[in-house]
């Protein structure tokens, strides 16, 4: 029925031609197909932004909420029904700016979801203002003299908070991105992937060429279990930008740590009238 035809959505996509989002969408589809999950077992959650259109462009369950608020409902849905595979598609403005607080605290929760940040270092939907990851000196209509704020380093923050899986990819590297998403889906905790992505309309600095020239894939010599080394890689930016799994520290997540969520999903648990009656007796 609806599951036939897999995850691919044929309809129009309101992204600019050449947008990095297409690559991330293709990678997500690939990873989902490879995972063997049925579309009805998967929930894609987003906030607002170009990246956040994702739930409309893939045939899974969807929740397209508010700007900056992709992670809270993703956590709520996963906690309510932990049988779901929950994937968050968010942008650098959505996840690091408006939703920065939720980024911090859902890593702390270590909720078992995959969070993908489409990081194009600029605001696309609102047409070209600085984002939390914009380079210093980048000029925009709202930063006419150039950005003076220090860029947010999502990889370093995630490692500092001990996220169990921290990775970086580049949207043109569809195979790598798909591999990372697939691995993230099997992580028993908060799995985070920052995907560098050109914005062909507004970011004239961080172009395909710019990323191609600098990015490289981490080899077997990098040990993601080494936190100090991982942090070192997190600060590697500029001339060389590492891609791949930067940090790994698997440990039990929120669902596993919450008493009562071990087997049956929360949505199947109901309070009987007898239980309410028992509670009223405590008031005598």
């Amino acid at each position, binding site marked *: 029925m609806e599951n036939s035809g897999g995850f691919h959505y044929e*309809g129009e996509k309101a992204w600019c031609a050449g947008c990095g989002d297409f690559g991330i969408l293709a990678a997500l589809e690939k990873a989902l197909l490879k995972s063997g999950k049925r579309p009805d077992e998967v929930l894609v959650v987003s906030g607002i932004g170009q990246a956040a259109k994702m739930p409309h462009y893939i045939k899974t369950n969807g929740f397209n*909420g508010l700007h900056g*608020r992709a992670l809270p409902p993703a956590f*709520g849905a996963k906690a*309510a029904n932990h049988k*779901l595979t929950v994937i968050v598609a968010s942008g650098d403005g959505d996840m690091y700016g408006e939703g920065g607080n939720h980024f911090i605290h859902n890593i702390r929760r270590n909720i078992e979801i995959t969070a993908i940040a489409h990081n194009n270092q600029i605001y696309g939907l609102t047409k070209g203002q600085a984002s939390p990851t914009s380079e210093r000196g980048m000029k925009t209509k709202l930063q006419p003299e150039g950005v003076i704020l220090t860029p947010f380093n999502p990889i370093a923050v995630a490692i500092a908070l001990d996220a169990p899986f921290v990775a970086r990819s580049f949207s043109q590297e569809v195979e790598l991105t798909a591999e990372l998403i697939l691995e993230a889906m099997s992580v028993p905790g908060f799995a985070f992937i920052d995907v560098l992505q050109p914005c062909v309309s507004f970011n004239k600095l961080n172009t395909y060429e710019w990323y191609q020239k600098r990015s490289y894939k981490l080899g077997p010599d990098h040990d993601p279990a080494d936190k100090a080394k991982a942090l070192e890689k997190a600060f590697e930016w500029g001339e060389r930008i590492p891609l791949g799994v930067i940090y790994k520290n698997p440990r039990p997540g929120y669902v596993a740590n919450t008493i009562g969520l071990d087997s049956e999903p*929360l*949505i199947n648990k109901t309070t009987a009238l007898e239980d309410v009656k028992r509670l009223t007796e405590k008031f005598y």
Partner: protein
Amino acid sequence: MTETVITLGGKAGQGLITVSDLLLRYLSRSGHFVFAAQDYMSRVRGGHNFMQIRIASDPVFAPLPTSHILVAFDQRTVDEHKDELIIPALVLHDIDDVKASGNATFIGIPIKMFAREAGHPVYGNSVALGAIAAVIGLRLDGLITLLTESFGKKGGDAAQKNVQAATRGYNYVRDAFPFIGVTLPRPGEKPKMLINGSQSIGLGLIAGGLQFISAYPMSPSTGVFNYVTSHAAELGILSEQAEDEIASVNIALGASAAGARAATSTSGGGLDLMAEGISLAGVAEIPIVIANIQRPGPATGLPTRTAQEDLDLALNIGHGEFPRFVFAPGTAEEAYYTAAHAMNLADKYQVPVFVLGDQLLVDSYVTLDKLNLGKVKYKNHLADANKVKTPYKRYQLTPSGVSPRLPYGVPDTRVMFDSHLHEEDGHITENIEICRKMVEKRFRKLAGMIKEPLGPTLYGDKKPQITLVCWGSTYGAAREAVDALNAAGIGAALAHFNRVSPFPAKEAATFLKGKKAVHVVEGNYQGQFARLLARETGFKTGEPILRYDGRPFTARYILDGLKRIYGNGKFRRVSL
């Protein structure tokens, strides 16, 4: 009606709560009607806090500006409350800490000395409790049973020490003041329930099928969250302390979309932060219950005090237009039914449902014989996956405006919740026709919503000279004022509104028709309900009786309001 009013006062951290809790438990178990209001400052230690306990022959739901017995844990309690005492009054106090003054009878008890004898200053609480028990004629054996039960859980010799301390206090008063004694109103035959509004709202949410609560602590709403959380593990409810209120509402919406019955609790400032999330619930049609416990604002305002300032906020919060329920129960008992009902209604109509409480409602203890658990039955309104049309459309246009709602995870089904204008299947669109149809669909729900129960409650004289109108916890004081007016031969009536949205305009208009001297009584400056009433019914009420100093209404405050409006004349005979 006869009653004895006891006020206990002292610094935060002095053990006031321990003594009051035990006293209230004893009284409710003995079958007494009690009402106990807490007045506390926003601090953990020091300051001046007090609790007033009314022990009455009939149910009462509001504090009084007067008392018969003052239990003073410090001198400041005497200084602040001596003018409220009805002479002959008694003041119980530690013999060292308080100086006798005024016309009341001062009963000094060597509390600290007896506590030292028992082994620790903390036992002073039980000495005081014993002394109070002796003065109001409670039985020592009953008190010992209660103390043994309460402190037995702590293990060691805590129970025995507390019993020793209480017995010392009890016997000292009996021996040193043999002629002092107050007779309480005759209690009922059976033990009564003792419950506060936080507990009753929390219990109501649970009875209404709550599966998930996410909230951020904020006075005076934290009690609701605490109560639910204290039973969460045993009931399989998930309770999550969110990083902020924006998160708490959005987390609850995600859980609700997944099929869990979800709620959040907060107070005004937290509700402000939830505004966009509530708007999301409106357009994405996600069920959620929001228990908003009011305190005075704006901004931080008076964190631990009471107000009814968030009516306009609850009615309007969230940009754009969408239907909602707003309830404002009058008593802790009503709050239980309202909260349970709210959970069902959110699920039935897929709209945000507000339960407005306030500090007075949630922090005050009342007694009742029992809750009628059969009155509001849990009902699941999720659609049957085998009966929905395929392909499934989350926002299917229907005559009632309510679309069949499925949770995520139904085989061969795609469920899409969206914050944009959307097609019937949840896909983003900017189509003019769909836009109009979706707005109309959402508002078609109102036709069903307006027929739901919890409309206005009418009380008092059928052909009144004076009519009071109120909402929320002002019910208790207003009802008492109406009783006093009727007793003095001045026909008075009361209309109390629980459901304020959708507004029961027809019932309101019928009740108000032909009535003169109609006064809205509410805890805000602008007369928010009076304006709502005028807007919805065209009925212009008389001068409202308002309170906006963070303190709860009393019947006397309302009477004073009437005197200000009409002059003292005919109110002279009203005894309050």
